[in-house]
């Protein structure tokens, strides 16, 4: 059979860092996959050098709308380290609380997107409806639904009151109930199992070799979690488990994320119950002495790394961000190899990039010498049809 090469992207906003996948096909099976990067480049790292530390906080928040708190916390830890400032304990606890709420919102969002890519739209609508509860919590605590901006240099912007605590707890208890239902669904529903088991395999040794991070790595049995390995904020005082799974496939990633939700709920309760007293912020001078700092943070998608270099002025000299999706891309290439073309949307979605816009993939038929263009939607439909023919049908649920 002749080989066909499919360029998937470059306009592939399904991922934080838009890229281009070159898929080589034999029939419907992928024999190899390559990745090209560097499309949706805005030039934020350069822009950060022209703004003050405080302005950068709001710029860095907009690296990603889904893990905005992860980026600002990582950045601000660097700034505070360079400024040698003692951040109050209460501020650290509030940051942890928002961080975990963010993880809940991100994982619920992912669960919905994964359901959507499988063709299980009911799950998508359910999880997005429940996700509103977390967004309400975040709005209550910070004043905004997506970019919370709770961090400020030297602490946090807002305190938490007793009423807010009860309200958040109430919503988290409701979510706990719903999550138990999702866990049952993910592990027992035969249609979900048929679409996720043995799809997008990533064995442990490959996960280590390719530097996978976050739930993608943990689903391959690699217990890698910055919150445990090198605790930041107040994670060393919290009681939680690092969830791993050993099936190394999309099913594993589904289970890991669902169980991590439960751990996050536990942590949210712990933080709220043991919120330390004291001030929420301290004053930090505008100018920061020369130095360098590197910090990492367990974002919902995995390890996020920030590097910061200061030069004595009120603006940074250099800022470098390594987002978790970048680390996981190498693994995606591996997962797709040997798989079906129909599984591509699900496998890409499984590392939890962001499904935000219309993508297209062009199919290059080497024999006929012509190019066909597939949109993301068509790819998704094709996947659903492919499985329907094999008896996996969600419309009967």
């Amino acid at each position: 059979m002749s080989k066909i090469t499919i360029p998937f992207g470059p306009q592939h906003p399904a991922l934080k860092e838009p890229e281009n996948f070159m898929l080589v096909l034999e029939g419907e099976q992928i024999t190899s996959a390559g990745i090209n990067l560097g499309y949706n480049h805005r030039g934020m790292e350069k822009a950060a050098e022209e703004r003050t530390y405080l302005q950068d906080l709001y710029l860095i928040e907009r690296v990603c709308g889904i893990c905005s708190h992860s980026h600002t916390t990582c950045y601000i830890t660097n700034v505070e380290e360079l400024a040698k400032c003692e951040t109050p304990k209460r501020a650290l606890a509030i940051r942890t609380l928002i961080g975990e709420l963010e993880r809940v919102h991100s994982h619920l969002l992912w669960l919905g997107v994964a359901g959507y890519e499988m063709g299980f739209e009911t799950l998508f609508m359910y999880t997005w409806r429940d996700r509103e509860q977390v967004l309400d919590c975040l709005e209550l605590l910070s004043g905004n639904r997506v970019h919370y901006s709770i961090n400020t240099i030297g602490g946090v912007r807002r305190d938490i009151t007793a009423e807010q605590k009860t309200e958040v707890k109430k919503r988290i208890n409701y979510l706990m109930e719903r999550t138990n239902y999702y866990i049952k669904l993910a592990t027992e529903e035969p249609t979900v199992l048929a679409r996720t088991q043995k799809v997008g395999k990533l064995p442990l040794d490959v996960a280590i070799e390719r530097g996978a991070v976050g739930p993608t790595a943990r689903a391959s049995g690699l217990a890698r979690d910055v919150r445990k390995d090198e605790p930041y904020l107040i994670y060393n005082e919290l009681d939680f488990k690092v969830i791993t799974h050993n099936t190394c496939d999309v099913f594993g990633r589904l289970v890991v994320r669902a169980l991590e939700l439960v751990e996050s709920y536990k942590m949210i309760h712990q933080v709220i119950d043991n919120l330390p007293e004291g001030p929420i912020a301290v004053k930090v001078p505008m100018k920061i002495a020369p130095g360098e700092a590197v910090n990492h943070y367990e974002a919902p998608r995995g390890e996020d790394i920030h590097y910061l270099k200061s030069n004595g002025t009120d603006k940074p000299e250099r800022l470098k961000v390594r987002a978790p999706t970048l680390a996981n891309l190498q693994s995606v290439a591996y997962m797709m190899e040997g798989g079906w073309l129909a599984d591509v949307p699900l496998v890409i979605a499984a590392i939890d990039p962001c499904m935000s816009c219309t993508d297209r993939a062009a199919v290059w038929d080497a024999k006929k010498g012509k190019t066909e263009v597939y949109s993301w939607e068509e790819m998704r439909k094709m996947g659903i049809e492919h499985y329907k023919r094999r008896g996996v049908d969600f419309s009967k649920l």
Partner: protein
Amino acid sequence: MKIIDKLITWSLLKSPWILHFNSGACNGCDIEIVDALTPKYDVERFGIVLKATPRHADILVVSGPVTRQQAKRLKTIYEQMPEPKFVMAVGACGCSGGVFNGCYGVIPGVHQTLPVSVYIPGCPVRPEAIIDGVVKLIQSVEGKK
């Protein structure tokens, strides 16, 4: 007005179909747009349906500051849409570049690339604002009719 035009305007007003395009947004606005389609806000009850291809769409919802790489693709997508077509710039960065104003990879504001009918401010926009924007657009088309 020809009968066919009347029919087209009528169907546009009754059920505007939208296409969402991310031109380098931070995803904040994108998740809020999807949020507007899910049960809590549920714009589908007004007949607003999200479409996957530009050839079916009446309204192009653009989020993001338009990166240099995406500008060309944005234009192509706009050209593929049938008339009458409208563009909605969503979010502070769609309106003016917002926080990304001054970044070297960005042509700030959708209006530098396409003619824009509605600007929806906010960083990110709230789903209520998106619904309001669509309603305002429909009202203005109705007024012209």
